[in-house]
């Protein structure tokens, strides 16, 4: 559904992405793990077009309707079905949750350029927004800045879902969310439609091993290895990467 | 032909230095403290009128009035900072804009009340009048003096901001107030002193510019545009940026008026628009 070939990016001497190859088949749940500074968020920024790669290609879709999106503007990639959330909440403080998500739906439907008809005339868009918010139980009426932090993290996801993506990239969705709420958050992610390909960055290994169908380990801008949770769990190199030279017996 | 080119370059650079002296204070308040201080030229006017009063009414020599202009303008800056600006550091830049334009209006009316709307005139001391002949060309001595003062101010400021503890404290407080407080920096006092320096520099710039561009109560509005151009083209928070911008604008304005005068007034605005489109954060701006 999303594939990347020979992606490279460096800021002067600092290499943040080196020969990255990826292929995420449709409907899978990928976890992207690795120590801080491994280049995880950078990879998402490269794929979504926020950062321009030095070399390499990015493709969206499968089979014959696969299209290269390397040079596409970020908003056009979203329209093609590639959505993301941000590690730090990037929301609309004074808009209510309903207004924010309705706006995302209107952009998707191409109504956002309509400056003549009043918003109430777009009932279906508002209703769809309300249902997305309902599914993630985010209160619709309150301005975003008055929402609890956890609710804001869910609103990030709601905004991404509103674009009806084919691929959803979650950048540490549960960052800063207390343990009990993060479980509920991932449960919500879990029962997203099987059609949706999801890749999420996460540090909490319990969550990773419970929700991910496959795991990618990144270190120093390169992909160390990729595999099922079991393969990754047993692999020496992963433990070493996380815990450094193992001082005590495994 | 060569002599007139040199003359244009010299005059352009001197005019640039005048623009720099007038706007360097703003590159401290707006540039470093991120406070939209449109009342900057009102502080320049305070310095200007202080110098004129001392020179005309009390017969002070011109050079002696300059430090006093700096101190008086700095004192007024502290007063306003304590009373008004301090409450608006976190306000929206639109509200800062409204506050400072209000102060501009108040300053215009106040100076019109005390000094009438008459054009203030001062006499330069003998050694600064006329011009010095060197290499077959005449260099206006007052312009040489401006260049020297501008270089002095730039050196002191860059040394002060970049290489002293106080400078480090100012930069820290401006970058991240919370962190600076965490490190035990008295942010409140640092901001007050920084604002005083910004205001004082404005006063000095005002006192120096009377000789060239005159002084009357509407000074606060007429030169605000030029000062904003220099600081925005130079780049926020960069003294060197303002210096470079003032030089580029001064020379291009002078050369434009000399070589294609029909372009006259358009030139300085065209140069500004071109530079800003090329480097929106300014020549040496950081943010």
């Amino acid at each position, binding site marked *: 559904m999303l594939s990347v070939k020979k992606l490279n990016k460096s800021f002067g001497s600092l290499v943040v992405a080196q020969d990255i190859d990826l292929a995420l088949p449709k409907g899978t749940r990928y976890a992207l793990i690795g120590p801080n500074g491994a280049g995880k968020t950078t990879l998402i920024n490269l794929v979504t077009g926020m950062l321009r790669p030095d070399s390499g290609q990015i493709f969206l879709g499968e089979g014959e309707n696969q299209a290269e999106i390397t040079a596409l503007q970020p908003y056009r990639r979203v329209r093609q079905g590639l*959505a993301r959330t941000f590690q730090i909440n990037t929301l609309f403080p*004074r808009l209510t949750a309903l207004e924010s998500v309705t706006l995302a739906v209107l952009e998707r439907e191409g109504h956002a350029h309509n400056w003549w008809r009043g918003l109430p005339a777009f009932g279906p868009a508002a209703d769809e927004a309300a249902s997305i918010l309902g599914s993630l139980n985010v209160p619709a009426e309150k301005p975003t800045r008055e929402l609890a932090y956890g609710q804001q993290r869910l609103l990030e996801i709601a905004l991404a879902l509103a674009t009806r993506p084919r691929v959803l990239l979650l950048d540490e969705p549960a960052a800063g969310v207390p343990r009990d709420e993060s479980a509920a958050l991932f449960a919500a992610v879990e029962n997203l439609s099987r059609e949706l390909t999801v890749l999420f960055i996460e540090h909490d290994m319990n969550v990773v091993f419970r929700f991910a169908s496959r795991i990618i380990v990144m270190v120093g801008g390169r992909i160390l290895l990729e595999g099922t949770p079991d393969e990754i769990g047993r692999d020496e190199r992963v433990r070493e990467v996380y815990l450094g030279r193992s001082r005590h017996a495994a | 032909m060569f002599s007139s080119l040199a003359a244009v370059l010299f005059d352009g650079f001197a005019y640039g230095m005048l623009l720099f002296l007038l706007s360097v204070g703003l590159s401290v308040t707006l540039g470093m403290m991120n406070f939209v201080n449109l009342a900057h030229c009102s502080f320049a006017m305070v310095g200007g009128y202080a110098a004129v009063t001392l020179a005309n009414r009390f017969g002070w020599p011109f050079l002696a009035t300059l430090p006093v202009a700096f101190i008086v303008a700095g004192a007024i800056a502290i007063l306003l900072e304590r009373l008004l600006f301090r409450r608006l550091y976190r306000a929206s830049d639109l509200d800062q804009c*409204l506050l400072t334009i209000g102060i501009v209006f108040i300053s215009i009316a106040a100076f019109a009340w005390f000094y009438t709307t008459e054009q203030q005139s001062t006499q330069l001391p003998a050694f600064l009048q006329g011009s010095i002949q060197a290499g077959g060309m005449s260099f206006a001595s007052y312009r040489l003096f401006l260049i020297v003062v501008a270089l002095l101010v730039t050196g002191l400021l860059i040394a002060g901001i970049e290489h002293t503890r106080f400078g480090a404290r100012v930069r820290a407080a401006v970058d991240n107030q919370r962190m600076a407080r965490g490190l035990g920096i008295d942010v409140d006092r640092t901001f007050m002193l920084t604002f005083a320096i910004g205001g004082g520099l404005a006063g000095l710039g005002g006192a120096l510019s009377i000789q060239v561009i005159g002084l009357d109560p509407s000074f606060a509005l007429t030169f605000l545009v030029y000062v904003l151009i220099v600081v925005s083209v130079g780049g926020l928070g960069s003294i060197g940026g303002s210096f470079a911008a003032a030089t580029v604008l001064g020379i291009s304005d002078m050369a434009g008026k000399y070589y294609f005068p029909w372009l006259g007034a358009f030139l300085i605005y065209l140069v500004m628009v071109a530079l800003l489109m090329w480097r929106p954060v300014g020549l040496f701006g950081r943010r």
Partner: protein
Amino acid sequence: MAGASEQLARQVRWRPLETAFWLAALAPFAVAPSYLSLASQVAITALFALSLDLLVGYAGLVSLGHAAFFGFGAYSAGLIAKHCWSEPLSALVVSAALAGLLGYALSHIVVRFRHLALIMLTLGFGLLLLEAANSASALTGGADGLQGFRVPGVLGFKFDLYGRTAYAYSLLVLFLCFLVARRIIHSPFGLALRGIRENALRMPAIGSASQAHLRKAYTLSAALAGIAGALLTHTTSTVSLEVLSFGRSADVLVILILGGAGRLYGGILGAIIYMVARDQFSGVNPQYWYFWIGLLLVAVVMFLPNGILGGVSALRKKAQ
């Protein structure tokens, strides 16, 4: 689920307070017949502030050169009256289109910038247009202003000394443009503008072509400002370089901030308070009225942050 569109509808609904406001706007005809020409210029400035509010209050683009479009509309109306025809309503539409065109052209450059660079670019374009008008004095009449044209009246009503027709004409056009602006703000496009103001970074991430939105906002705002300029030309039969000046751009920005940006009525309220205060202060004290206006601005900022409307709504929230 009905709750969703209900919440959006509640925002758009016309409130009784608004009806009261527009009825009160008719009061000067009866209460203050000798202040009608001032009222007409207040209505024109209110429309100008409303056009700027579309940019500053809703799209978050601060402009210090909006008089460029006001003046362009004013000169278009003047030149039409001088060389083409003197019927004002059609001239209004043409002037709006011309100003909108200029806005569209400049928007391609302006919307790519933010903060101080944006403010200085708009200032620069404004001053360049002013210099162009000054040097093209054969066409524009330069500093002495455009001479040799008169707009006798509108729809058969003559512009008289009392300003009755002038105020009726200005108020009607202001009301119509206000309805358009209100509809824009409550449309999907308006919501997109507010999104850009709230968080320009997020917009591309929800698939929004925010640059295109900003260009359209800039064009619409320029057209509205052009209408305001044309109105001034029609009601006073005078046009001079002052309509393009930095002073007028700064004044309208002050008026908008005073009233409260981003609140639809902020510009209108600001125009009423600022211009009536200026008229009264300068009547009482012709030489030093600047002092009182300055004091008023400082007071509003210190006690009513975010303008008068912003302060009032904050007080109301605290009261609840």
